[in-house]
């Protein structure tokens, strides 16, 4: 069943789009990521112009993150106080990101810098998380178990300490604000919601419980994606509402299943899976940069919009 997409200017099969949306929505609910960094390359693969894929992706992330957020909210897995601090940092980061974005674009190396940023962040986060969660899993098999809510590190020496009741934490407001700042900046530069950066950072740097992180991250992603969807629709008219709603139809259902599975999995298992996914995306990007491309030339039609 093919549907013509008026902004993307091509026809795609509605069932394939629903299925794609469902798969990405499932991951969104499971890990608290928006799924933009998965959906955008998939849409480009289907023949959608990159700009439309990015713009429409932000709209899809609004739908999937609100669906996942409500499911996590119902399970009381959202720390709104933490989210507010992250967002205030995120807004400032997005402002700086817009400036960095135009700077890089003028230098003509935007794509490469973005790809390298992705690889560095994804690789580091994926590796750290994979090692940590795997070693914890292996240790769990042994009877010795000294349970602590979270580990204490340099973060706890920072000033401006606040009590986060939902996260059961008493930590400085500085790390979440800084994490928000960097996520906001990278999200603007790379055109994604930034959940895959925010989730591991909140787990490992701030020490939030994995379950709470996912719901809280979805709240941040929702805010970021609403802002960037609006920006894309205003600046370049690249949000295809037909395409977004078809994808969203699958995604919102997938997100419900994802959040259900998320609440049933042990947090170590969840982190191993998230680490694997982050490393897989990183590996694909490395291959893209290192491997000889099928066609070293890329073509872009300019000035149609």
């Amino acid at each position, binding site marked *: 069943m093919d549907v013509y997409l008026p902004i993307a200017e091509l026809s795609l099969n509605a069932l394939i789009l629903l299925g794609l949306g469902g798969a990405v929505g499932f991951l969104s609910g499971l890990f608290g990521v928006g799924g933009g960094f998965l959906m955008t390359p998939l849409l480009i693969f289907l023949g959608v112009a990159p700009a439309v894929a990015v713009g429409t992706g932000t709209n899809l992330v609004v739908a999937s993150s609100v669906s996942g957020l409500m499911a996590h909210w119902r399970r009381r897995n959202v720390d709104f106080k933490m989210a507010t601090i992250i967002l205030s940092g995120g807004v400032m980061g997005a402002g700086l990101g817009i400036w960095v974005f135009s700077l890089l674009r003028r230098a003509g190396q935007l794509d490469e810098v973005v790809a390298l940023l992705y690889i560095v962040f994804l690789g580091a986060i994926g590796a750290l998380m994979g090692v940590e969660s795997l070693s914890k899993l292996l240790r769990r098999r042994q009877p010795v178990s000294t349970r602590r809510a979270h580990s204490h590190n340099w973060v706890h020496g920072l000033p401006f300490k606040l009590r986060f009741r939902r996260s059961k934490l008493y930590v400085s407001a500085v790390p979440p604000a800084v994490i928000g700042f960097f996520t906001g900046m990278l999200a603007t530069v790379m055109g994604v919601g930034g959940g895959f950066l925010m989730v591991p950072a909140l787990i490992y740097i701030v020490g939030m419980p994995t379950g709470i992180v996912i719901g809280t991250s979805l709240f941040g992603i929702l805010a970021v994606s609403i802002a960037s969807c609006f920006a894309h629709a*205003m600046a370049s008219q690249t949000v295809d509402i037909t395409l977004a709603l078809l994808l969203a139809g699958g995604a919102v259902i997938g997100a419900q299943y994802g959040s259900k599975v998320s609440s049933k999995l042990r947090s170590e298992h969840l982190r191993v899976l998230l680490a694997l996914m982050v490393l897989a995306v990183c590996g694909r990007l490395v291959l893209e940069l290192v491997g000889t491309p099928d066609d070293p030339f890329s*073509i872009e039609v300019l000035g149609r919009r």
Partner: protein
Amino acid sequence: MKRVLGLISLIVCLGLAGPVGAAGEKLVVDLSTHQIAIDSRFTGAEVIMFGATKSAGDVVVVVRGPGDSVAVRRKERSAGLWFNSDSVEFADVPLYYTYAASRPVEEIFPEALRRERQIGLDQIVLVPKTDASGDMIQSSREALLRERVRHALYSEQAGVITFIDANLFRVSLAFPASIPTGDYRVDVFLVDQGRIIAERTTPLAVTKIGVAAQLFDFAHRQAAAYAAIAIAAALLAGWLGYVVFRKV
């Protein structure tokens, strides 16, 4: 039905025009439609061209889409990684190009005439508007042709020219779902012994209609309202998904 009407009206036209314009009208053509309408169920279109000739010769049909600037970028390996290095921009590149001929065009036209009329993929004129080396321009041109062919936007197989009798032919022109919108032109040449003895140009408009057109216009004319509606729709979809499927 439309096509049948088109054929009937064409035949009537030919019948009326025949005796009067016998000397001048060596070639008469018409399309089954002059507008390809893209609605929300558009999956490509077929346009039938009918034509009548008053003298022997080969028939060549060339379809050109609207022109636009196109950038071609080349990746090069540096420090083991593939980075964009050179780029070149071409002005007024036809976004769609296809042709049909009753025989291979190389046999119908001399090379100079094919170049002059831009008949054949190898003859499309691409004018660089940015500085680049001759080698870069040549390989970018090839890359652009490859990309257009891969997406079925350039082809050498517009359709088969079928002669219904010695003087009446029809061509079925197939357009893919991804055709760019805009003003197309269909040029028909009647060629005899390497010379164009008659030619006709027919316009063809590719436009969005119905919901597809309204959405496109709305997105462009009232971007803020469109953005707000898109976000509201996404929020609603997300909320609905939660309400309906939260029991899972």
